[in-house]
């Protein structure tokens, strides 16, 4: 387990809901739409404090993971209070997942590929636990290809990543590099906030 990542997100857990309050509200409609196709055996990376649970379609049976014990504690509480289905939350590093190969029909991520230490490696592990015809659905903020937005994200990233996420990861390229076949990319804000849908690709 990556202890420095765990420590960073444990520290962030305390103020997380307040700092992400604006984003949580501003992206609410997009997120509700994004999570609406959830079905089958679903893995959610990463739970955070569980702010996204309210957007999950009702009555699903979902497995969630997160590296931070403090995030997991808050998320477990939210899973009971905010959700009418089952969310089984594990304290687990995406780079060392204990699930057998080809376990999940769908994997969902939300603002997480900016946060895990090795995005391509993490995605390769996600691909391992996805069934052959399974789907990867991602709601992520990424680098921009256009000035002046790329300049701002590149400047902010070293500062932000001390306390939270990296701001300039090329997640679409990372998904491809991990072997997934991308079916859809939709820009939600500039070319920074995106929905990415992919399948496992050639095995």
């Amino acid at each position, binding site marked *: 387990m990556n202890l420095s990542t765990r420590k960073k997100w444990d520290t962030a857990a305390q103020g997380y809901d*307040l*700092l*992400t*309050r*604006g*984003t949580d*509200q*501003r*992206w*609410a*409609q997009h997120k509700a739409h994004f999570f609406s196709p959830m079905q089958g055996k679903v893995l959610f990376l990463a739970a955070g404090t569980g702010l996204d649970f309210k957007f999950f379609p009702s009555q699903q049976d979902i497995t969630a993971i997160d590296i931070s014990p403090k995030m997991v504690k808050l998320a477990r509480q939210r899973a009971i209070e905010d959700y009418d289905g089952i969310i089984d939350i594990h304290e687990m590093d995406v780079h060392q997942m204990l699930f057998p190969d080809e376990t999940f029909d769908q994997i969902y991520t939300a603002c997480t590929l900016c946060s895990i230490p090795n995005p391509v490696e993490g995605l390769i592990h996600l691909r391992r636990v996805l069934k052959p015809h399974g789907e990867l659905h991602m709601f992520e*903020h990424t680098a921009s290809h*256009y000035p*002046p*937005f790329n300049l*701002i994200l590149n*400047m*902010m990233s070293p500062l932000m990543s001390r306390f939270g996420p990296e701001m300039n990861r090329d997640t679409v390229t990372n998904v491809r590099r991990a072997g997934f076949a*991308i*079916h*859809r*990319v*939709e*820009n*939600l*804000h*500039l*070319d*920074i*906030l995106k929905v990415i849908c992919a399948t496992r690709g050639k095995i």
Partner: protein
Amino acid sequence: MKNQLYYFVGDLVTTTTTGGLTGAACALVVQNGWNSLVAMALGMLLGMFLALILNAFLGILFGALEVMILTMLTGMVTGMIVAMQATGGISFYSAVRLGVEVGSGVIAFTYLTNSLLRGEVRQ
């Protein structure tokens, strides 16, 4: 649920506040007769510093990512323009007004670019 108008007004408040404050700070710090390149660099840094502070508060109200882009862009551009003007002398009022104008320009530019980039991307 908050609607589009709330966020538009929020974004406008964000950029005009950042622009106005950066303009004011540049007018107070940069003196008549300074080297304009030094003034521009200092103005940009001042704008970025103020943007970071405003970010922390306004992001909670209007969304951290959107606010970060708007405050940083407004802070940097306002800082450079007003600081350069201040090397030839600028009144406090004009500096604030210029900052607010830059803020309005930034929101127009960002919304226009967003309308061009938003939507499905061909693979």
